[in-house]
């Protein structure tokens, strides 16, 4: 009988410890703070790019990830989200301006617009932390999804119209008349 009493007391203690540990562990309100560290500038270079048509978008990919526990494997659903800026960009270094002699007309030769997308942040969401999971594949899926959604001939056409409007306004303000041709 004293043995039974000891076992019960031990079980009570373990249950209490388990309760406290779960409570502490559940307090995930812990704010993730990042220390202030210096910025290292690796390169600075001059560029000439006109962002003519842009959108901020967010997309996600779902993956099933496997976590091996003490006794079994468990599968979790994970979501990789990405916030991206998608844009059509004109490389201004490739634009040629040819002014006709004794005239206020400038022939502006425009190259093809370039579609770009830049990642402005993301979140990996899963019930458990996955130390060995590499999100590179999920990130690629999201990037591909965004590209296929936004890089379309219609958008490219609208972007080119805006490029012409912007450059036209600028050239006009300089007292000249632009004539656009494709390069």
């Amino acid at each position, binding site marked *: 009988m004293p043995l039974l009493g000891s076992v019960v007391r031990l079980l009570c203690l373990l249950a209490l410890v388990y*309760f406290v540990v779960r409570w502490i562990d559940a*307090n995930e309100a812990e704010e993730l703070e990042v220390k202030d560290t210096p910025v290292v500038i690796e390169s600075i270079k001059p560029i000439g790019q006109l962002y003519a*048509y842009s959108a901020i978008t967010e997309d996600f990919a779902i993956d099933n990830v496997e976590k091996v526990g003490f006794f079994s494997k468990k599968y979790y659903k994970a979501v990789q*989200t990405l916030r991206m800026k998608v844009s059509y960009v004109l490389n201004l270094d490739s634009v*040629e301006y040819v002014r006709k002699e004794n005239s206020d007309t400038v022939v502006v030769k425009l190259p093809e617009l370039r579609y770009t997308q830049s990642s402005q942040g993301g*979140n990996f969401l899963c019930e458990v932390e996955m130390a060995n999971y590499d999100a590179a594949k999920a990130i690629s899926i999201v990037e591909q999804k965004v590209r296929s959604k936004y890089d379309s001939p219609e*958008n490219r056409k609208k972007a080119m119209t805006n490029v012409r409007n912007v450059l036209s306004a600028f050239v006009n303000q300089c007292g000249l008349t632009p004539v656009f041709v494709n390069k």
Partner: protein
Amino acid sequence: MKRRLCNYALALAACVVAVVAANVLFDKPDPAAQFLERKSHDKQEIIGLFKSRAQMATTEVKLRRMGIYDSETNFATINPASWKLGRRACIMPVDITIKYGIDMSKLHEGDIRLDSSTVRIRLPKPEVIDYDVVQRTDRREVVTMSGWLRDEVGEQTMQAIKNKVVAQVLADSTLFNSLSTEVRNNTQSLFRSMLLQMGLKSVFTY
């Protein structure tokens, strides 16, 4: 004897209740499920809408900043959220490419004036036009550590660290001020080269 057995039975029942209650009460929410649930209802934010822009990027800066997270530094006796059993830390580099330039839509009427063959341009203040964060993590460059009963440091924490670092870099006015002269010079050079091809000279003010 009977009473003692009854007490033990009650104590065991209390144990079971405590364990079950701990599992139910402190069950961690599944952020992936929450996100998907929210995604199906949340229509508040309008994103993905293309807008016509006139942003001219003239300077590209590649930079790196170390993201250092150490849970131990957060311990506060009055905050139960920081009462963690053990330490959790991560050191990782965050690579960002920032493009600075000007927004040409901020060039108002009167900001560009033509005096015979010289164009006088009053340029708007430089600003961040675009930035790109390297989202994939090269694990060879990451150092992680997690102590007793703490979650491991994984992709979730690493991406959260990245987001924090990016926000800090973008809000860093010292960095921005140190680059603004370079950005202005590059913007002037770009306009100068455009106008030269049109047979015009240029003068800039701010």
